[in-house]
C-alpha cells in the first residue's frame, strides 16, 4: 500500500520545519555558537542568491554588480539606525535616528529596487557580456561612492564605515541580546536566525509565486528570445526593469539584515568578489531553479568557514605545519569546485526539471 502523496508532502514539510526550528540549537550545541552565526550568514546569502536568480536565472540578464543593492540596503539601515547622522550633522539631527526594523527593511527594499531600475534603464538594449561590464561598473560606482562620500559632507563615513548600528528590535527586544523563553535561554544569534529564517521563507515564497506567474513566464521568454517575446506581446522594457527592480529589492532586504546583524558596515564588504560569489551560488546551484540556488548559496556560504575550521588541523597532521593559508585555499578550492561542476554538471548541481528533460531528450535522440 503506497502512502497518499499529499500526506507524504505534508509530512516532509513538517519534518523540514522541525529541522529548521531546532537547527540553531543542534549546531550551537555541536559546533558552538559561532557556527550559528555562520548559518545566519548562509541565510543572508540565500536571500541574495534568490534575488540575483530573478535577474540572471529567470530573465537571463547577467548582472555582475548585484552586491551594490545589498550595499544600498545595508547603508540605509546603518544611517537610519546608528548615531552616525547625528554626529555628522548635529544641526539636522538633534537625536540619532532609530527607525524600527519593520520600517527600515521595506524602505531599504524600495530604495534598492529604485537603484535596480536605475541600473536597468540605461542598459535595456544590452545583453550578455556588454550588460555584464556595465553592471560591473555600476557595482564599483556604488562602492566607490560609499568609500568617498565622507567629504564634503560626511554621509557614509568613508572607508572607516559606520559603527554602532542598532540591532533589529522585535517586540521591544533587541535581537542581539539573549532572551529567556519558557525557562530556556535563547542566545541572540539564535533569535537572529529565526528572524532571518522567516524572511528567507518569505523570499522563497515570493520567488516561487513569481516563477509561476505571468511575469515569470515573460522573463523566461525574454531570456530565450527577445524579438519573439516582443512579437508575443510582452513589453520587454517593463519586464526587464521589473526583473532588475525586484531582484534588487531582495538584495536591499538582505543588506538591511546584514547591517543590523553586524552592527557595522564598511565599503569593503561590498566588493566585486562578493558579487561574483553570489553569482557563483546561482550558477553552481542551478540557474533559474529555486531549490538549486538555495543549495548553491548554502554550500558556498559554508565552504570558507569549513575550510577555516578544517584546513589548519588537516595540514598540521599531514605535513606537520601549515603550508597554505586557509584564506588563499578558499579561493583555490572555490575555483576548482566551479571548474568541476561546470565540467560534469553544466546545468548546476540541482538543475530544474526542464533542463533535465532537455538533456534526457538529447539522450533519446543520440
Amino acid at each position, binding site marked *: 500500500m503506497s502512502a497518499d502523496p499529499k500526506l507524504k508532502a505534508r509530512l516532509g514539510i513538517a519534518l523540514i520545519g522541525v529541522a529548521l526550528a531546532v537547527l540553531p540549537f543542534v549546531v550551537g550545541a555541536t559546533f558552538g555558537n559561532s557556527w550559528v552565526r555562520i548559518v545566519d550568514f548562509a541565510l543572508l546569502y540565500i536571500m541574495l542568491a534568490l534575488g540575483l536568480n530573478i535577474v540572471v536565472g529567470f530573465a537571463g540578464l547577467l548582472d555582475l554588480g548585484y552586491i551594490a543593492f545589498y550595499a544600498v540596503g545595508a547603508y540605509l539601515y546603518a544611517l537610519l539606525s546608528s548615531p552616525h547622522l547625528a554626529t555628522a550633522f548635529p544641526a539636522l539631527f538633534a537625536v540619532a535616528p532609530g527607525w524600527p526594523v519593520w520600517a527600515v527593511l521595506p524602505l531599504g527594499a524600495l530604495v534598492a529596487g529604485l537603484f535596480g531600475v536605475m541600473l536597468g534603464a540605461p542598459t535595456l538594449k544590452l545583453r550578455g557580456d556588454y550588460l555584464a561590464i556595465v553592471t560591473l561598473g555600476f557595482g564599483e560606482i556604488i562602492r566607490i561612492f560609499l568609500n568617498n562620500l565622507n567629504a564634503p559632507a560626511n554621509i557614509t563615513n568613508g572607508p572607516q564605515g559606520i559603527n554602532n548600528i542598532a540591532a533589529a528590535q522585535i517586540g521591544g527586544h533587541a535581537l542581539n541580546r539573549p532572551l529567556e523563553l519558557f525557562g530556556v535561554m535563547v542566545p541572540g544569534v539564535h533569535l537572529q536566525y529565526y528572524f532571518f529564517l522567516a524572511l528567507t521563507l518569505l523570499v522563497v515564497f515570493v520567488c516561487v509565486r513569481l516563477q509561476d506567474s505571468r511575469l515569470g*513566464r515573460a522573463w523566461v521568454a525574454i531570456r530565450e528570445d527577445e524579438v*519573439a517575446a*516582443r*512579437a*508575443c*506581446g510582452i513589453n520587454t522594457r517593463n519586464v526587464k526593469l521589473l526583473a532588475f527592480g525586484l531582484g534588487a529589492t531582495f538584495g536591499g532586504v538582505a543588506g538591511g539584515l546584514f547591517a543590523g546583524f553586524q552592527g557595522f558596515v564598511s565599503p569593503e564588504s561590498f566588493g566585486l568578489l562578493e558579487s561574483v560569489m553570489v553569482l557563483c551560488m546561482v550558477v553552481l546551484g542551478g540557474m533559474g531553479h529555486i531549490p538549486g540556488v538555495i543549495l548553491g548559496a548554502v554550500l558556498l556560504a559554508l565552504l570558507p568557514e569549513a575550510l577555516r575550521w578544517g584546513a589548519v588541523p588537516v595540514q598540521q597532521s599531514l605535513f606537520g605545519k601549515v603550508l597554505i593559508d586557509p584564506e588563499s585555499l578558499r579561493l583555490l578550492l572555490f575555483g576548482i569546485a566551479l571548474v568541476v561542476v561546470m565540467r560534469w554538471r553544466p546545468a548546476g548541481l540541482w538543475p530544474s526539471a526542464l*533542463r533535465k528533460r532537455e538533456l534526457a*531528450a538529447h539522450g533519446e535522440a543520440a
Partner: protein
Amino acid sequence: MLEVRGLEVHYGGICAVRGVDLDVAAGEKVALIGANGAGKTSTLKAIARMLPARGSVKLEGEAIEHAPPHTLVRKGFALVPEGRGVFARLSVLENLEMGAYVRDDKAAIEADIERVFGLLPRLKERAGQTAGTLSGGEQQMVAIGRALMSRPRLLLLDEPSMGLSPIMVDTVFDVIRQVVQDGVTLLLVEQNARLALSLCDRGCVMDGGEITLTAPATELLDNPAVRAAYLGE
C-alpha cells in the same frame, strides 16, 4: 488591411529600405521576394516595429508606426521572426501558451491549442519536448503555431524556408497553405520565389531596398525577367 507608405530603414549610413509602398487587402496573400540584402526582412521588421523606421504604416486604417511593438499582437498582428525564434528551453506546449500571452480567455486558449495541434499533428507528438531539441522544420512549425495562438488577422512570416532541407521546406509550406486557408491575411518574405509565388496571390519583387515590380503571382511566375533572376531559369 495593411497600408505602408514611404517606408525607410537606415542602418547607420546605409539605407536598406528606400521608400517602400505596399498594400495588403484583407484575406490577401502577398509574397515579398528578392535576393539576399534586397531589404525584404528589414521591410517586414519595420512594419512589425522591430526596427526604427520612417514612413507610415496603417493597419485597418489605424496608424501603427508609433505603437510599441508589443502592442501589435492585440491589434491582430503576428510575426514569425527570422530564424524562428522559438523559446528553446520551453516545451512545445509552453511555446504555444506564450503565443497566447496577451489573452486571458483560458477555455478558448485550450481550444486553440487543440486547433493548432490539429493543424500541426507533429507538434502534438512533441508537446512535452523542449523546443530547442526539435529539428529546424519542427521549430518552424512551433513558431507558426505560436503565432496562430494570438488569433491573428495578419500573419507576417519571415523566411520560413531558411535553413531547412528541401523535403522539410515542402512540409512547412504545406502547413502554411493550410493555415492561411481559413482567411488569415499573409505577408510572406521568402527567398524561394517559386514556392512563395505558388502559395500567394500577389508578389512584390524587391531589389536594392525598393519594390521594383508588383504583379499577380501567376504573372510573375511567367515573367521572363523574374524567371531569369529569381527562378533560376
